């Protein structure tokens, strides 16, 4: 495939030490005394949102989850919408790192590290919502098989319990993968450190890595194995999340299309978030030569492809509802598009199916700011997708006497908005203090790194 031999660099000037240039480019962000002003502005804003997040969570813990708009019949409400939204975002990182690694898509080296970081921060945000939604957030250990005096165990035949294992395994493996990838880069930071604090701190996390080829050999093998493990894992996580819905008998949820549809949606939303972050990051941190327009274009193509899959799934749901002849299914889908939540449905359709079509035009998908805007639109659309699935199906099921209409409370909106504060705070700290680009990998796939001399 042609995209696999994309080089992260344009043709280098003669006599240029490409390796040193890559090191300089990436370490500069973490080594400069004063980051760009944009970083400070973004960080301050993120802190405000984070404060709002902590405040609203504290309010919910103190007063109980009645502070949210969750009600009968829409007991899942915002917390689960937000959970599925964030966990979906957390798919692109591992996909880029693991799946593209196995497919030898070397262009991934420019973006994999911060896509992985984004994954982990998104999973952190995701985990908070079910943790709060259980109502007594101080008892989440009930979900794990811990021996106790009541002789009670989790119920392993429930998809919700599968979810606990899937999400925590995914979080753990993502962190391991991310950390292992950073070890050689931490060593670079350590060796360039000018202060004792930096030398000791990066020295501890680098674990004494000195780039021995015998160590590289084991390391590369370990990386390959982790990629091979993470690939089915990344596909399984959102499949398991979709089981939460698909194994219920509720019309609109009880469909076999859910696992692939959810996974495609997750990749779609995840890549949208990657480009949303990549565009400003390359702009403000001077990474334009490492994360090139070509990279953005390739990611936009993935967004377009997965967007089409998602659009197909939307259509297929309607077809199956009609073809099944089940009047409840038919009602649910007609209600989705033309019922009280019709506005949410059409927001979803226009954000997820219509706008990404603009990427058919090369001028659009090669334009960073258009990329950013469409990325944002897709993020909104994917949030609404989860809202539509959860709220329309729950609010009107079988018996009209038990129908209802879910309206979020201000606390709901504050927790949703605040979770972005947590996400951006973590992400901005990552940009400032950790190797934002996998230097050793970019070097290995740069023209100089691929050179074989006289052999």
């Amino acid at each position, binding site marked *: 495939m042609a995209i696999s031999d994309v080089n992260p660099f344009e043709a280098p000037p003669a006599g240029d*030490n490409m*390796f*040193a240039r890559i*090191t300089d480019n990436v370490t500069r962000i973490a080594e400069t005394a004063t980051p760009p002003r944009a970083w400070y502005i973004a960080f301050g804003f993120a802190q405000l949102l984070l404060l709002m997040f902590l405040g609203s969570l504290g309010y919910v813990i103190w007063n109980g989850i009645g502070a949210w708009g969750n009600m009968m019949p829409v007991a899942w409400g915002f917390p689960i919408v937000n959970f599925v939204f964030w966990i979906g975002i957390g798919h692109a990182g591992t996909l880029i790192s693991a799946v593209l690694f196995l497919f030898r898509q070397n262009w991934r080296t420019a973006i994999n590290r911060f896509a992985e970081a984004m994954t982990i921060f998104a999973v952190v945000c995701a985990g908070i919502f079910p943790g709060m939604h259980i109502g*007594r957030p*101080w008892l989440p250990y009930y979900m794990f*098989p811990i021996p106790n005096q009541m*002789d009670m*165990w989790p*119920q*392993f*035949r*429930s998809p919700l*319990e*599968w979810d606990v*294992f899937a999400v925590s*395994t995914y979080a*753990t*493996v993502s962190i*391991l*993968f991310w*950390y*292992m990838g950073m070890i*050689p880069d931490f060593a*670079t930071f*350590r*060796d*360039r450190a000018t202060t004792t604090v930096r030398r000791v701190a990066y020295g501890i996390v680098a*674990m*004494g*890595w*000195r*780039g*021995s*080829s*015998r*160590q*590289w*050999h*084991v*390391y590369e*093998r*370990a990386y390959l*194995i*982790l990629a091979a*493990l*993470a690939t089915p894992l990344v596909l*399984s996580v959102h499949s*398991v999340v979709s089981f939460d819905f698909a194994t219920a008998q509720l019309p609109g949820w009880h469909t076999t299309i859910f696992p692939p549809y959810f996974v495609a949606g997750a990749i779609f939303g995840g890549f949208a978030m990657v480009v949303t972050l990549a565009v400003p990051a390359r702009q403000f941190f001077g990474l334009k030569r490492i994360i090139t327009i070509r990279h953005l274009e390739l990611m936009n193509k993935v967004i377009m492809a997965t967007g089409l899959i998602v659009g197909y799934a939307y259509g297929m749901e309607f077809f199956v509802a009609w073809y099944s002849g089940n009047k409840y299914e038919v009602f649910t889908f007609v209600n989705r598009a033309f019922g009280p939540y019709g506005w949410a449905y059409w927001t979803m359709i226009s954000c997820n199916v219509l706008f990404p079509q603009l990427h058919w035009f090369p001028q659009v998908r090669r334009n960073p700011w258009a990329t950013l805007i469409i990325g944002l639109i897709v993020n909104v659309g994917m949030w609404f997708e989860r809202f539509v699935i959860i709220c329309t199906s729950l609010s009107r099921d079988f018996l009209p006497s038990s129908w209802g209409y879910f309206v979020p409370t201000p606390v709901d909106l504050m927790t949703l908005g605040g979770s972005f504060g947590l996400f951006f705070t973590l992400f901005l700290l990552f940009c400032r203090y950790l190797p934002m680009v996998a*230097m*050793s*990998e970019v070097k*290995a796939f740069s023209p*100089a*790194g691929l*050179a*074989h*001399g*006289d*052999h």
Partner: protein
Amino acid sequence: MSDEHKKHSVKSSPPPVHGLLAEYDTPPQILHAAKQIRAAGITKWDTYTPFAVHGIDDAMGIKMTILPWFTLGAGLTGLASAILLQWWTNAHDYAWIISGKPFWSIPANVPIMFELTVLLSAITTLVGMLILNNLPEPSHPLDQVRRFARVTDDKFFLLIRASDPKFDDVETRALLATTHPVAVEAVLEDRVTPERMPTGLVYGLIIFAVASVVPFALAAKARYTKSSSPRIHLIQDMDSQPKYKAQRENSFFADGRAARPAIEGTVAAGDARDDDHFYQGKDGPGWARTFPSEVALNEATMDRGRQRFGIYCTPCHGQIGQGDGMVSRRAESLQQGTWVAPTNMTLEYVRQQPVGQLFGTISNGIRSMPAYAPQIKTEDRWAIVMYVRALQRSRSGSVGDLPPDARASLK
């Protein structure tokens, strides 16, 4: 080690040589050098590079690592423990039925099997990588070499260790020279590592060690001693609520009762039921023969009576009160012999009963029939009596009872 000795060792002999380090600029150079060194039969050597140089494994003759076997073992362990965990907890130790699913079946347990397999494999892969690579390795003789700091940036190095049987300062230097290095440098054994840890670190570690024992000590103390004060209860979970429950003592009142008795000479609102006719169906000592004045004898009351009768009486007594309701018929068909058939209330003896007595039967129940006063409002009970009267009348009527214009329809 004494101060005397330390000074001596530093001053006298320089530390022994650890090996010879050669530096290169590009991947092709280091690949080339690696091939030459390997061909020269050197065994204790290594190369150091900023990234995994393609082809260096072959050039150096590095054998395939056994790491994948670690992973496989961990994966199988994860799979087995997931099977065991789920079977033991849900099908053996505490088996309970949920949604009619079997206690133990493979499909429902596959997701957890998969997750634990991956989890254990992944952790083992990382830990195995560290162990096989002898990491973490806080210090190394190479750390003293200034130029070596660029190994994680842009330079490539080759180290031949002094422990190699063929090592000889002059010959090995000559061998390295044939590989066209940028520079060659001797690496000395690391002697500068201080013999004692910094005092601050020592005290810090001691304080940390002592402090970390405290929670366990407190827990152990709580476990093995008795205390009369309530347990520490960080999160209340609504366990204690500021209210009195039935039978609780209340020190505020002289009699110590939390539930207060009614004040003498008073009646709670709505509890004054001194109208015996209306509430008891009594007229003096005997049953009242007339409806009380509170009950309006009109069409509306009759309709209300029919409706309430349909709800409360028909299950046993049937639609027209002859004792053949659904419950009764079902009970009869079971033939268990314990069922007392509901009375046919159109029988003569019931018809002779005064309205007050019918009201009493509904309110207080009779023999096997339960009381309905708690469920049916007083007015409604009277309405039902009125309807029962109508039913009784309907079973004993004659054509002469009908209005003249309705008689024709019977013919």
